[in-house]
């Protein structure tokens, strides 16, 4: 009997022993108060955010911002939701563009940023923020619900060495999709490239931004910014035309599909595919791994759809403050946001990452510092996003269940590019599936 007693003891004590081993080494002191910030950016960008937090921590001794890299954007969001359900959400959560609808749809969870800054008397000048950014993150009354942090827009990168080799003028990059076709033929003709062009984040670059750039709708009610009753309409002839053209380019070897997300990147950086539509924030990664000269210009457009392009829209992420913490902690969050929105910090983040300067003043400062003379590409992005006064089709998008909604679009695109389905047929099906997701979301948030 003693033997069992012993065994049972071992079994029962085993967890507590291990638990003791896993106990945090230091007991949390009163001050500094810890502020948890969960982000979905890894790599060099994640490290830069940690560096910014460390600077803030060094500036004062009341708060300690602890940046946690929670995997990719989707993982960060799921973890935060699980944590919220369990009653201990992070203070600050970075949410990606497609998750924005989910956050907007659940206002109980969110401490709106405009409210936070007001409550704790911190300056937050939304007039200084770029219109395209404000629109993306504001509610129907025009109040900013989240803190715009890493916004980027897709631009057109090209391999300058490859252009020269194919006898193309690198100072005269393609402007229209017809030019792209012509350039791609010349490049593929040299026999050195597996295809002429590729793009990353296929739905973001060739559906969401395609729509804004050509001033055509993706969905009704200003792409959802004006209400949850929005319906997808991206099976209209303009979209069908573009998808059909891409399928044709793929068929002729001019275009190589590189996968979802950022998977296409290595095709460009390894020198296989000399033209590449990608985020302005991809700049640093490309500069680091490409051993050729490259440049960037505006996105291509179809002159038969629009005479001159409208403006592109943003993607990336913003910072949401989650409910469930004490006043004195929120005070720290507000102070941290004030620090993050300062012109110097914004300008330095923009210059490091290639994300857009969120405010006019940060843009101005960067210009004064002569940064764009050095790297004109970063100016390309911001000029493109501010090209014209935004219309209902080019302010931004807000769709519920859009993580799935975007994946529905990607399914359709993949079927079209592989030649498994016609463009009209695939987009029709996608619109139908997408609308079902919108209606489900509408029902869930109607409470």
């Amino acid at each position: 009997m003693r033997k069992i007693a012993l065994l049972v003891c071992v079994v029962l004590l085993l967890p507590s022993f291990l638990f003791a081993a896993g106990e945090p080494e230091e007991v949390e002191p009163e001050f500094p108060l810890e502020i948890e910030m969960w982000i979905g950016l890894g790599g060099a960008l994640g490290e830069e955010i940690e560096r910014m937090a460390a600077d803030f921590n060094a500036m004062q001794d009341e708060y300690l911002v602890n940046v946690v890299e929670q995997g990719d954007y989707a993982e960060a969001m799921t973890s935060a939701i699980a944590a919220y359900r369990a009653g201990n959400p992070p203070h600050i959560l970075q949410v990606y563009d497609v998750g924005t609808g989910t956050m907007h749809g659940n206002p109980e969870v969110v401490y709106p940023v405009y409210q936070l800054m007001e409550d704790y008397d911190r300056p937050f000048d939304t007039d200084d923020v770029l219109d395209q950014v404000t629109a993306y993150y504001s509610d129907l009354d025009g109040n900013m619900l989240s803190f715009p942090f890493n916004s980027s827009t897709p631009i057109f990168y090209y391999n300058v060495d490859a252009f020269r080799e194919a006898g193309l003028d690198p100072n005269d990059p393609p402007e229209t999709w017809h030019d792209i076709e012509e350039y791609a033929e010349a490049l593929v003709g040299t026999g050195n490239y597996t295809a002429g062009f590729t793009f990353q984040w296929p739905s973001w670059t060739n559906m969401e931004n395609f729509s804004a750039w050509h001033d055509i709708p993706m969905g009704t009610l200003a792409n959802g910014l004006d209400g949850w009753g929005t319906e997808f309409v991206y099976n209209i002839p303009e979209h069908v035309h573009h998808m059909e053209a891409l399928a044709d380019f793929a068929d002729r070897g001019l275009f190589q599909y590189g996968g979802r997300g950022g998977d296409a990147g290595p095709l460009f950086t390894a020198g296989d595919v000399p033209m590449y539509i990608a985020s302005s924030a991809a700049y640093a990664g490309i500069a680091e791994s490409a051993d050729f000269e490259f440049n960037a210009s505006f996105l291509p457009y179809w002159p038969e759809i629009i005479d001159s392009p409208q403006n592109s829209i943003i993607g990336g992420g913003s910072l949401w403050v989650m409910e469930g913490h004490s006043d004195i902690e929120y005070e720290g969050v507000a102070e941290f946001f004030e620090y993050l929105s300062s012109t110097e910090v914004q300008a330095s983040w923009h210059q490091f990452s290639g994300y857009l300067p969120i405010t006019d003043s940060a843009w101005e400062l960067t210009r004064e510092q002569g940064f764009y003379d050095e790297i004109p590409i970063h100016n390309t992005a911001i000029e493109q996003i501010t090209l014209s006064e935004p219309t209902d089709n080019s302010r931004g998008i807000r769709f519920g269940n859009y993580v799935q909604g975007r994946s529905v679009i990607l399914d359709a695109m993949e079927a079209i590019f592989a030649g498994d389905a016609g463009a009209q047929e695939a987009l029709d099906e996608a619109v139908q599936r997408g609308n079902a997701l919108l209606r489900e979301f509408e029902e869930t948030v109607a409470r």
Partner: protein
Amino acid sequence: MVTGKSVVFKNKGLPYVLLAPEVALTAVFFIVPAVQALLMAFYREDAFGLSRVFIGLGNFERVLSDVRYVQSIWTTLGFSVAVAVLTMVLALFFASLANNVGKKAIYYQTIIISPYAVAPLVAGVMWFFLMSPAVGVVAYFLRTLGITWNHSIIPWQAFTLVVVASSWQRIAYNFLFYLAGMQMIPDSLLESAAIDGSGPVSRFWRITFPLLSPTTFFLAIVNTIYVFFYTFPVIHTLTEGGPNNSTATMVYRIYRDGFRSLDYGGSSAQSVILMAFVMVFVLIQFRYVERRVYY
């Protein structure tokens, strides 16, 4: 009824004490969360759990009327069959070769079983690195042979890739069982066949293979369950279910819809459906294993 010994100890309290830790762990970390997860299948809920509406079988209707979900059932079955057949055929082939090389067999065995120790995630990373259209060294050699490799758009290549990556790792396990099975076949049987003039191939088909049929049956079921559950990291790292849903298995969909798309109701309904499938397999296996005890 669960089989037990016919000769047993008599003690009223002791067995409960002995079972307590296991039952406690199971109840706390399995039953409670599993029941919660399954209940979600009958509710429509927002991501944060703020609103909860009972909708009966609504989630099931929604999931089963989704052609892509039905497609993922077929993908799962096709994937299971492909991995099971490929691994079993190769494992059987290598085991039958290794069974008759005497002492050297241990060297071959050592190498062939080593992928058992490789994590599915690591196998996925490895094959991603080899087959990436941009940096992959294997993809490069395929291209010099005139084969365009781009599993991000060509469904059959994506499917092939997940099958190969999963099988690469899984041959080890099958090999072990086949080799052990062969070593249990009495030499005298094979020797007498050899004396009758049967060659190695004919001996294999006439004697070895039929005698291995219990092993084959066992492996077929175990491999199926393996594919159902444990190939998730391979798909996650290699294809994320694409292109156009062509490699989305049932478990991958559960993960994607629940974990990434935050559709907990739909994801839970899928769990229930998956459980029904697996239960069938497990019951077959269980009956079979139980019966063997009386052999």
